[in-house]
């Protein structure tokens, strides 16, 4: 026991004197968490609070186009501004850039006419189907009214799809209003009363959004709840930059020759490194979670809600142990520090990508989704998300912990084989 204690003291001393290693393990992940959470929070706010700037070139003089612009404004998603009607496509694109607008809509000159024609056609068909005689429609209804949507290429497809959905909704509103008015006029020979128009068009069924959680709470997940757990896992696995090269350094340095001549098995040394660096991973998690709780609100980010503390500690221990085991394994197989650092860093980024930290695994398909299951980071993330986003308890993450434990045992076994093969134990 004294040997282990002396070895832990040695490892802690060396670690504390390695300023570059400490900054890689603590400062870099902290910066990463703050930046990524900030960026994602801004994206959420862009859609939620900030309103997306949209520029409209209305070439139409009728009422329908005005109604469309009003509807777009009422959606609450866009900050609407207009540009003169005589702009061509090139000029309009320049106007968008000047106005810093991510989106632009050009409403064609015959927009209101087309909406009216379409409404009359729909009303006639409705009257005919009721057995009433509608006005004969001389004008042929053309194809769908064409609005042109310009967008900045930086807008992601998912965001473009939601914008198109909002635009379709506004358009539907305008067309429905016009159809209703036409139909009412055809039957009653007078205009549709405002009260009835409001009742029929504006009193729409609302959608109640409910996040599904295991603890029955209705907390809405935010950028902090998503990012802090994910990047904490990344930070824990990034100990490879210090631990992997520490193992190689010890192996290739003269001290290892002496260690092999001493009456102590090198496994004591590796066991000490596991304990020391597990302490580091727990400290990393504590620092990043503390930032989420206390620092984030001060810099305008949502505060982190800590889930069931027992489950969180157990999950962190399992994730930390897995991360440390992986780092030691790489260190045992690498022959130089450059190999350990290069392979270590790249492999963590790859495991991070396929593990769902950068792209959600539900968005992955087929083979890639299957590969994701091999990444220990994936199971760590699943465990953390069950706690942080779904309000789960220890029993809810036991299957995930079992898989992390299994992967860790496999890594440890591979490490043992490497130690034997290289005659290190």
């Amino acid at each position, binding site marked *: 026991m004294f040997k282990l204690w002396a070895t832990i*003291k040695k490892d802690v001393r060396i670690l504390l004197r390695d300023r570059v290693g400490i900054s890689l393990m603590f400062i870099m992940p902290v910066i990463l968490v703050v930046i990524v959470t900030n960026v994602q929070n801004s994206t959420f706010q862009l859609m939620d609070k900030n309103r997306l700037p949209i520029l409209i070139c209305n070439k139409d003089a009728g009422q329908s186009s005005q109604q469309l612009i009003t509807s777009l404004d009422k959606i609450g998603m866009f900050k609407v501004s207009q540009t003169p009607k005589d702009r061509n496509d090139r000029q309009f694109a320049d106007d968008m850039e000047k106005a810093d607008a991510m989106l632009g809509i050009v409403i064609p000159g015959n927009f209101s006419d087309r909406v009216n024609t379409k409404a009359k056609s729909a009303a006639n068909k409705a009257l005919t189907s009721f057995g009433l005689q509608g006005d004969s429609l001389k004008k042929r209804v053309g194809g769908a009214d064409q609005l042109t949507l310009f967008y900045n290429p930086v807008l992601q497809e998912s965001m473009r799809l939601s914008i198109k959905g909002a635009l379709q909704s506004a358009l539907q509103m305008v067309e429905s209003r016009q159809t209703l008015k036409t139909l009412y006029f055809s039957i009653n020979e007078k205009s549709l009363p405002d009260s009835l128009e409001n009742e029929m068009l504006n009193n729409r069924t609302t959608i109640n959004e409910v996040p599904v959680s295991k603890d029955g709470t209705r907390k809405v997940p935010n950028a902090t709840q998503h990012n802090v757990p994910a990047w904490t896992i990344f930070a824990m696995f990034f100990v490879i930059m210090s631990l992997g090269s520490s193992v190689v350094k010890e192996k290739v340095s003269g001290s290892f020759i002496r260690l092999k001549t001493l*009456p102590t098995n090198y496994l004591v040394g590796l066991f000490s490194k596991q304990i020391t660096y597990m302490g580091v991973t727990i400290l990393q998690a504590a620092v990043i979670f503390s930032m989420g709780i206390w620092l984030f609100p001060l810099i305008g980010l949502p505060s982190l809600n800590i889930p069931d503390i027992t489950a969180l500690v157990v999950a962190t221990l399992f994730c930390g142990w897995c991360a440390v085991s992986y780092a030691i394994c790489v260190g045992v197989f690498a022959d130089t520090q450059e190999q350990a650092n290069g392979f270590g860093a790249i492999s963590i980024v790859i495991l991070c990508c396929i593990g769902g930290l950068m792209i959600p695994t539900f968005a992955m398909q087929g083979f890639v989704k299957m590969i994701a299951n091999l990444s220990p980071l994936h199971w760590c993330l699943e465990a953390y998300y069950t706690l942080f986003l779904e309000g789960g308890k220890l029993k809810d993450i036991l299957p995930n912990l079992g898989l992390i434990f299994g992967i860790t045992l496999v890594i440890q076994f591979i490490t043992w084989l490497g130690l034997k093969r290289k005659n290190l134990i």
Partner: protein
Amino acid sequence: MALKDNLAIDVTDMGFSYPDNPEVSFSNFNLKIEKGERFGLFGPNGAGKTTLMNLMTGLLQVDHGRITLLGHDVGNQDKSVNKLFGFVPQDFSFYQELTPAENLEFFGAWSGLGPKKIKKRTKELLNILGLEDVRNKQVLKFSGGMKRRVNLAIGVIHSPAVLFLDEPTVGVDVQTRHAIIDYLRELNSRGTTLIYTSHQLTEAEDLCEQVALMDNAKIITLGNIHTLLNKHNNGSLEDLFINLTGKEYRD
């Protein structure tokens, strides 16, 4: 012939070769070193001195034959024999980020000592080797001579019965060399067997009683240093060395 009980090292019919370097190949190699000797192992580069030392300390495993150290088989899995010897490699074999005291604490623990014994030995060794004033400074900042003394201190922290020294004074100034050689003599006078390799033949002449000259993984001459010099009509160990191994480059 030496009695078995009186032997520090007994290499019997030992065979060894590197899988990827058959040039250094030991075959039916025999060597006996008595307890309390100051034994020098010399030879040109590539003669097999370091390989032999690695075999005697268990860093390499023999292909056949047997090596015993104070009657115990070397290379046993339980490593119990490793408590009986100390090793001072040619390379600095410690953690440069740590202080001398911290290095001694760690290596003392791995040598099987308890905390009290480590504390006592650390104080003694730092005093004897002139490192007391720098006991809490990182070894990283030390001169070559100071690092050599730290290297030696770690090798003897557990007061081993047999001490292997691979070029313990390489790259140090005259003062440090004298201090190290004096300390080794003192250890030997208290019963420690010294097994020593060096290219500093004048220093070897000064320290060693028994010498073995090696070439091509074979012992070409072995015995008391003065007897050998007389036998071969050479005035110094260096002359004897050149006479027996030639003047050609070896590496």
